[in-house]
């Protein structure tokens, strides 16, 4: 009998399970470390992925709502009334394939996509506004069908 090996075992560990306990301990170390590092980086990581600091947290919140409900007019109300109804209650714009197992149809959000979505929307809105204001001045009008003889 190897008395030295037996003597070196941790309290409560028998020789039969010593290898398993050793590997469990290593896995526990890895799990704890990864869990803590992941927990520490989750909030800043998500904020950066979603567009911070280019976008403020409230702007990120608004952009997420626009994607979620497929509605460019959504804005993140903050601070939200304490006993107000849920912000999305009664909305009718979100897109899904409805059924017993519904399937959402919102857009996938890649790295800094919310910044791009916002820039594109603002450019689109500015172009539409410009078009509306310039239309009467340049004398061009929508073609009108010639009157019937």
């Amino acid at each position, binding site marked *: 009998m190897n008395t030295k090996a037996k003597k070196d075992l941790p309290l409560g560990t028998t020789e039969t399970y010593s290898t398993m306990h050793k590997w469990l301990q290593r896995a526990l170390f890895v*799990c704890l470390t990864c869990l803590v590092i992941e927990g520490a980086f989750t909030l800043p990581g998500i*904020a950066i992925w979603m567009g911070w600091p280019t976008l403020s947290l409230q702007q990120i919140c608004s952009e997420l709502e626009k994607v979620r409900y497929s509605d460019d007019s959504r804005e993140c109300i903050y601070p939200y009334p304490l006993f107000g109804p*849920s912000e*999305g209650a009664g909305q009718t714009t979100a897109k899904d394939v409805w059924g017993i197992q519904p*399937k959402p149809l*919102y857009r996938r959000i890649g790295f800094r996509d919310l910044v791009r979505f916002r820039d594109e929307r603002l450019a689109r809105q500015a172009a539409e506004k410009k078009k509306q204001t310039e239309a009467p001045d340049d004398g061009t009008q929508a073609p009108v069908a010639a009157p019937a003889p």
Partner: protein
Amino acid sequence: MTTLTKSAGFGGYDAHQIASQAAQRRADYWMISGTLLMGCAVLGLIGLPLFFRGIWLQSQAAKAGLTMRPTIVTLIGYLVIIDSALNSIGWTLDLFAHHTLINRVLTTGWGAMFDGGYFWHYNELWLGGAGAPGEKAWEISLIPVLFCARMAAAIGLLQMKRWGQQWLIVTCWMGMIVWFGYNTNMTIFADVRYSHITFPVWGWWLYDIWYITPFLSLPYLHTVNREIFSD
């Protein structure tokens, strides 16, 4: 390795016990401080070195011949507390603080990246928060029942109490049921959970695999010599 110091003479055993308790308490102060910070998620990087300092102190004291808690018991106890704390943060935010700005960025952002259940029709349910099928039931049942019980059991285990070991076995088996039940729910409603998500399925597993604490704890808790835990 934990051994009894061969203190000779009258009162040697008592002196050894007192020195061991003091050393364990000193190490635990570091580990408790670290765990409090690590359980807050974002402060984890400050807590981790404090925790490892405690582990190192415990190991040094054991090497010096004092009777210390086995390292694996220490790791299981504190990991269960951290796991429960981190789970509780996310789910409590979703359950009670669903309209706060931080939650609407953190939770729905996380949902858009890893789990559509936290993005799909979010804050539309009258209760607020996630509206994915079954999700609210998991939150309401697991926060007060499972996570609180697991934390209490882990504290008992760290105090080397028999009830701590027994209750950690019970709550780790509950954790197993949660893992199987939760993943089955996610699989059945996979379209809601993973459609148009940045990192679907593999991303969720990569993010959540570190919460497999019950799977690592149970083999030890069932094979350890339970006589080391006192009544």
